[in-house]
C-alpha cells in the first residue's frame, strides 16, 4: 500500500490519486473551493495550497507519491488561506446576512473553518447585474468566485456548454452565458442540469425557494466543513 504523510498522519493512496483525493477519502479536510470530487481538478483558487517537502503546491492537482511529507493545516498555510479568502470576499459582493445561500455556502463555511473574522481589505463593490431571465433559475453573479465548476459540469455532464469563463483582470473576468443575447433564458439550460446544483456559493439558484429552509437547519449549520469530510469518509 502506498503511503504519504499529511501533518504527520499516514494517508494511504492508489497510484494516480492526487493529494486532495487521497486525503478526502481518508477523511482529512484540505481547504478548497474550486475542487469538486466529481470533476477533474481545475487548480485555480489556490486555497488548497500545501507544502510538500518544503515547497508549495496545489493539493488538488498534485499527484500523491510514496513518502511525501505534506504540511496542511499549519499556522503558516492557514494564515495565507485566510488572506486569500478575504480577497474572495472583497472581490465580489458577499452579504451573508441577506444571502439565501447562507448556511449552504462553501465560501462562508470555509471562512468559518479558517476563523476569518472580517474582510480586512477594502471592498471592491463590483457592478455585476443579476440574470433573472430564466423561468426557474436566477444567476446572481455578485457572489461568483470563478471556480469554473458550472462550466465543467455543463460541458461534461450536461453536454450543453451553457457557461464559459472570459475577460481579464479581477473586475473583468467573469462567467459568460453562451447565447446570442447573453441571457440564460436563451440557452437550453434546465433546473435538472448538473450545473444547476454545482455552484459552491450563491450564484446559480433555484428561483422562488429563497429561505424555505430555515437558517440553523442548513448543511453547514449542522457541523463544520472539515467535520463533514471526516463524516463522509468511507
Amino acid at each position, binding site marked *: 500500500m502506498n503511503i504519504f504523510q499529511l501533518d504527520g498522519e499516514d494517508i494511504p493512496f492508489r497510484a494516480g490519486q492526487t493529494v486532495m483525493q487521497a486525503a478526502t477519502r481518508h477523511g482529512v479536510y484540505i481547504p478548497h473551493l474550486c475542487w469538486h470530487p466529481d470533476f477533474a481538478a481545475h487548480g485555480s483558487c489556490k486555497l488548497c495550497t500545501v507544502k510538500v517537502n518544503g515547497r508549495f503546491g496545489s493539493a488538488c492537482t498534485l499527484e500523491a507519491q510514496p513518502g511525501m511529507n505534506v504540511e496542511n493545516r499549519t499556522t503558516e498555510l492557514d*494564515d495565507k488561506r*485566510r*488572506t486569500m479568502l*478575504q480577497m474572495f470576499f472583497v472581490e465580489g459582493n458577499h*452579504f451573508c*446576512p*441577506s444571502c*439565501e445561500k447562507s448556511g449552504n455556502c462553501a465560501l462562508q463555511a470555509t471562512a468559518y473553518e479558517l476563523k476569518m*473574522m*472580517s*474582510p*480586512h*481589505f*477594502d*471592498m471592491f*463593490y463590483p457592478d455585476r*447585474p*443579476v440574470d*433573472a*431571465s430564466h423561468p426557474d433559475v*436566477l444567476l*446572481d453573479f455578485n457572489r461568483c468566485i470563478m471556480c469554473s465548476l458550472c462550466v465543467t459540469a455543463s460541458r461534461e455532464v450536461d453536454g450543453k456548454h451553457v457557461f464559459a469563463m472570459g475577460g481579464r483582470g479581477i473586475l473583468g473576468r467573469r462567467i459568460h452565458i453562451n447565447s446570442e443575447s447573453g441571457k440564460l433564458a436563451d440557452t437550453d439550460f434546465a433546473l435538472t442540469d448538473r450545473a444547476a446544483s454545482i455552484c459552491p456559493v450563491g450564484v446559480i439558484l433555484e*428561483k*422562488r*425557494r*429563497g*429561505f*424555505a*429552509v*430555515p*437558517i*440553523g*437547519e442548513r448543511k453547514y449549520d449542522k457541523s463544520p466543513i472539515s467535520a463533514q469530510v471526516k463524516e463522509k469518509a468511507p
Partner: protein
Amino acid sequence: MTFELETASAPETLRRVAIDPVSRVEGHGKVTILLDDSNRVHQVRLHIVEFRGFEKFIQGRPYWEVPVMVQRLCGICPVSHHLAASKALDMMLGVRQLTPTAEKIRRLMHYGQILQSHALHFFHLASPDLLFGFGSDLAQRNIVGVAAAHPEIARKGVLLRKFGQEVIRMTAGKRVHGTGSVPGGVNKSLAPEERAALLKDIYQMVAWSRDAVGMVRQLFEQNLAEYNAFGRFRAAGMCLVRSDGAMDLYHGGLRARDVEGKTLFDHFDYGRYWDVIAEDVKPWSYMKFPFFKSLGPEGGSYRVGPLTRVTQCDSIPTPLADHEREEFMAYDGGSVTGATLGYHWARMIEMLHAAENIKDLLHDDDISGHDLMATGTRQERGVGVIEAPRGTLIHHYRVDENDLVIRANLIVSTTHNNQAMNTAVREVAKQYLDGVEITEGLLNHIEIAIRAFDPCLSCATHALGQMPLEVAIVGADGTVIDAATRDHRGLVREIQKIRAIT
C-alpha cells in the same frame, strides 16, 4: 486605497471600514430653531438623513430575498420590516389567507418584537428621565442609575426584553436577521420544547407588564401638570384597526381621525393607501412629510404609534390591556390622551397587550402545526402594512415577470411622525427657550420630546443626556444666532456666537 493597516501588529484582526451607502454612519439629531422678528420661536426643523435610498437597495433584487434583506435597512426594528415585506409579498403572490400556523407564528414574532422594543424603550431609554425628573443629574439619569436606585425595575426591564428576544429567536430562527417569515407563510413553527420554555415564563411577563403600566400611571399622578403640558399639541392620527374597530397590531384596515377626533376614513383597504395619503417634500429635509390627501399638505399631517393606536381603537382584545386602556382614557377627564408624554403610558399598555397575546398564542396548538405555506395567483404588486412598535409601517413593491423587484416604496413610522416630531419640538422650544441662547436644559427637553416618539433614529438610541444633537438658532434674517453641538459625553462642546443680538 490606503495601506497603513499593513504596518499594524496583527493586521489580520483589524478591519477596514469603507463608508459607503451600505454601512450607515451613526447620525446626530439636527435641529434648527427659526425665530421670528421678535425672537419668538416661529418654526422648528428636525433634519433627518437616515432614510435615504432604502428603496434603491431593494430594486433589482429577487422578491424572495426582500423580507430578509430589508432587515438590514434598519437595525432598530428589523422584525417589523421582515413582516411588512412578507405581507406585501403575500399579496403579490396572491395569498389572501395564510395557513393558521403561519399567521399565528408571524403574530407571535410580531408581539415578541413589540414586547422587546417597548421594554427597551421604556426601561432603558425613557424611565431614567421619568423616574429621576427632567432636571435631575445627568450622570444618574441612565439605566445604570435606575439599576442603582430601583434595582427591581431595572431587572424587570432587562428580563422582559430578553423574553421578547427569545420569542423572536424561536419564531424567526435568529435574534437578528431572522428568516422565519417568507412570502406566502413561514419556514418553521414552534417545537414543543420551545413552547414549553416560553410558557414557563410568560405569566411572569404579563404580571411585570402590568406593573409597568402601573408605574407610568403613578409617575403621571405625581407630575400631572408638568407631563400634560410638555410639548403638548393637537394631532391627527392614523393606525390599523381590526374589522370590529379593536386594536390589531398585525393586520387590519386604516383608521384616521383629524385633530378634532372626527373620522376621516375607517377600515380603509391599505392596498390602496395612496388614495388617502401622499408624501410632501421640503427643501430643507431629506425625509418626506406624509399627509392626509383630503386635508392637503399644509394641514394634513398626522401622528402614528402607541398613543394614536390606544386612543383610536374601540377596544383592546385582551382583557388586562383593555382595562388599562379604559383607565387611561378616563384619567383626569382624558387629559393624558393628548399629551406627548402620554406615549409612554400608551406604550406600556401595548406591551401588556403583547404579553397577553403571546400567552394566548402559546396555548394555541396551531403554533406547532406543519402546514406553513399558502399559494395564490400572482399579482404585479403588493402592499404590506403592519403596526410596528413605533407606528404604521408601509411596504409596497412591484415585481416583474422575472421575479425581480422593479419598484419599492417604504413609509416607516418615523416618517409618518416627521411633522408631529417637528411640532412637538417646536412646542418644547417655545416653552424652554429662554432668550436666544442654547442651554443644556433646552437640549435635554428637546431630547425628551424627540424620544417620546421613540423614533427609529440612531441618535435616539442613546441614553438621556447622551443623544448626539446639533442645535442652531436662526434669526428672522437668516443669520445663525447660536449653535451648539453635543457629543456622546453629554457636553455642550461649543457655543459659537456668530452675531450677538442687540
